[in-house]
């Protein structure tokens, strides 16, 4: 071998077969690498114990009419309000079609327990915690950050928030106990 140039690979004489082989090998390598990455990404998802974190039971017997409490559930505040009959009337009377996020009052509370709205106390605009106990112009909650007004059913009436306050899954285990989550 007396050539003076470093040996470069010969021009492919069986090009299609060579390409198939290399292509398959590369494809397998890519698939393998992708399959390897997934467990790492998934490991950052909530772990089994976090997912299993169950419910909070709340005693509501002591909440007087017109008052509300704030409890922690999955790291977020949840409002439980004892609405007056007047609140309920006003909430039902609203023309749903005019709402930014149309929802009737019925779907947001439990039947027979309309005086107990339960909702996640995080403003749907940018995440601040609204001020309650009849705050704002609609007798519900008022978010001081950018001026969103929610009514006593937790629906957005005025201000920049796009949707109504989130209603978490909950049930009444008794007349004075609510289980959230």
């Amino acid at each position: 071998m007396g050539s003076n140039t470093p040996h470069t690979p010969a021009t492919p004489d069986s090009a299609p077969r060579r390409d198939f082989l290399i292509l398959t090998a590369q494809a397998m390598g890519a698939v393998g690498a992708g399959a390897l990455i997934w467990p790492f990404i998934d490991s950052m998802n909530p772990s089994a114990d976090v997912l299993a974190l169950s419910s909070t039971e709340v005693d509501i017997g002591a909440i007087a009419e017109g008052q509300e409490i704030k409890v922690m559930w999955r790291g977020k505040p949840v409002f439980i309000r004892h609405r007056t009959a007047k609140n309920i009337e006003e909430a039902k009377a609203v023309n749903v079609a005019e709402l930014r996020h149309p929802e009737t009052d019925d779907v947001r509370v439990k039947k027979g327990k309309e005086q107990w709205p339960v909702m996640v106390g995080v403003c749907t605009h940018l995440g601040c915690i609204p001020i309650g106990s009849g705050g704002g112009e609609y007798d519900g909650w008022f978010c001081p950050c950018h001026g969103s007004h929610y009514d006593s059913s937790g629906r957005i009436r005025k201000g920049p928030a796009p949707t109504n306050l989130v209603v978490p899954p909950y049930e009444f285990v008794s007349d004075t106990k609510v289980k959230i989550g």
Partner: protein
Amino acid sequence: MAHAPQEEKPGVIGWIDYRLPLKPFTDLLYDFPAPRNLNYFWNFGSLAGIMLVSQILTGLFLAMHYAASTSLAFDSVEHIMRNVNYGWLIRYMHAVGASMFFIVVFIHIFRGLYYGSYKRPRELLWFLGVAILLLMMATAFMGYVLPWGQMSFWGATVITNLFSAFPLVGESIVNWLWGGFSVDNPTLNRFFALHFLMPFVLVGVVLLHLMALHQHGSNNPTGIDVKGPQDQIPFHPYYTAKDFFGFGAFFLIFAAFVFFAPNYLGHADNYIPADPLVTPPHIVPEWYFLPFYAILRAITFDIALWVIGAAILGLALVLRYSDVVRAVLGTKGVLGAVASFLPKKACGWTCIGTLLGVGTLLLLVGFGGVVIESKLAGVLAMFGSILILLALPWLDTSPVRSSNYRPIYRVFFWVFAVNAVILGYAGSQTADWGILLSYCAGASCETKHVMGLLIESAWMEKHFIDISISLISTIYYFAHFLVVLPIVGRIEKPLPLPESISASVLAKHTTAHH
């Protein structure tokens, strides 16, 4: 404003290269000319690289869930194993990966020893490699403490306690290391911080290692230099293809351990939460530390300073009359080789004077009872066993690199390898294993059990050391570097070297075809 490209080349690569030099990186891996005859032992460098990446990746994702506090650490690791999605997979990859990393690096080092890759002009490449080994060992040691099992705690206690061997400052050093008066929460916390940091220091040293390699290119199985382009092939696609194949084969072995025997290389005791009040019956480090552990424990005796003093006086005598000694030893064989290390002319009085002074001082101090305590001696021997690798380029006197052409040295190489395995085994056994000759007196004769001879003699028991397999292997380990390498290089008659790399490749092919 140095060396900026004159004009911007087309395409994305061109846009980047005009602004940030890509050529060094492409040179390193893509176009780099490599010898055409590298065998599969040359795959282990890239394997080590991929293991470093794997350890950093798995370690990072473990760190997202791990809590470095004595009350939480063990539980957090079990949380990873049981609750975190694929946590068990990432944890086992990291634990098994450490072992894989060391297997690969040890084979890589032994390749260097066999083929003389440490010789000129690659001495600095070799030094960087030793630095990488030391960093790996420190990282692995601290990492093993993090799960806070029984072995984690007690291994850390035993090894950090060694630093108390240093005279005067030993105690303070240990308390400084611990951040307290024993291995506890401060120790665990700082080990976590350092364990996270060191791999990135490692990456830096690896880059330097690759740059040093770049200077003169890879060594090759013949050990002779590349003579021209006909001896070389571009790294891509030849060695990229070969490396990918190597990755595949290696991952098969890695996966076999991770999925089917993930705890085989570990120790059951580390699944017991650390208890400072209960010492495990048998404290053992991870397998990759065993040879060094054996060396550490082999020095069971104090080293009297007067012995060193007498040796230095003896050396002074030899150097004063080195011409006479040379004449006596002659020029042939082993004795001739030893003679060749002595200076031709007798050493001057400054040189002799210093040696006489130091020797006498040590002699007097030694007779006064000053010794190097066995604990310190063991520590010095253990670190010495790694640091002696740095002297290798100068200890090996052979003009020939590759052991393929060194019939005598080749035998010693394998003896060294077997000796290393023996040291490893010795490290796994209890401290009283493998004693071949010992002395006892009276009551101690009832309790002492040895593998070989036990001689009853009160005087001998007081003054003589136990001869154990570990001690013989340790002495042989150092003798390989300090005695065998220099002498064999001088007296060996190497096999005739091929004319060039391409010539040797051709020769192989023609013999194969016949």
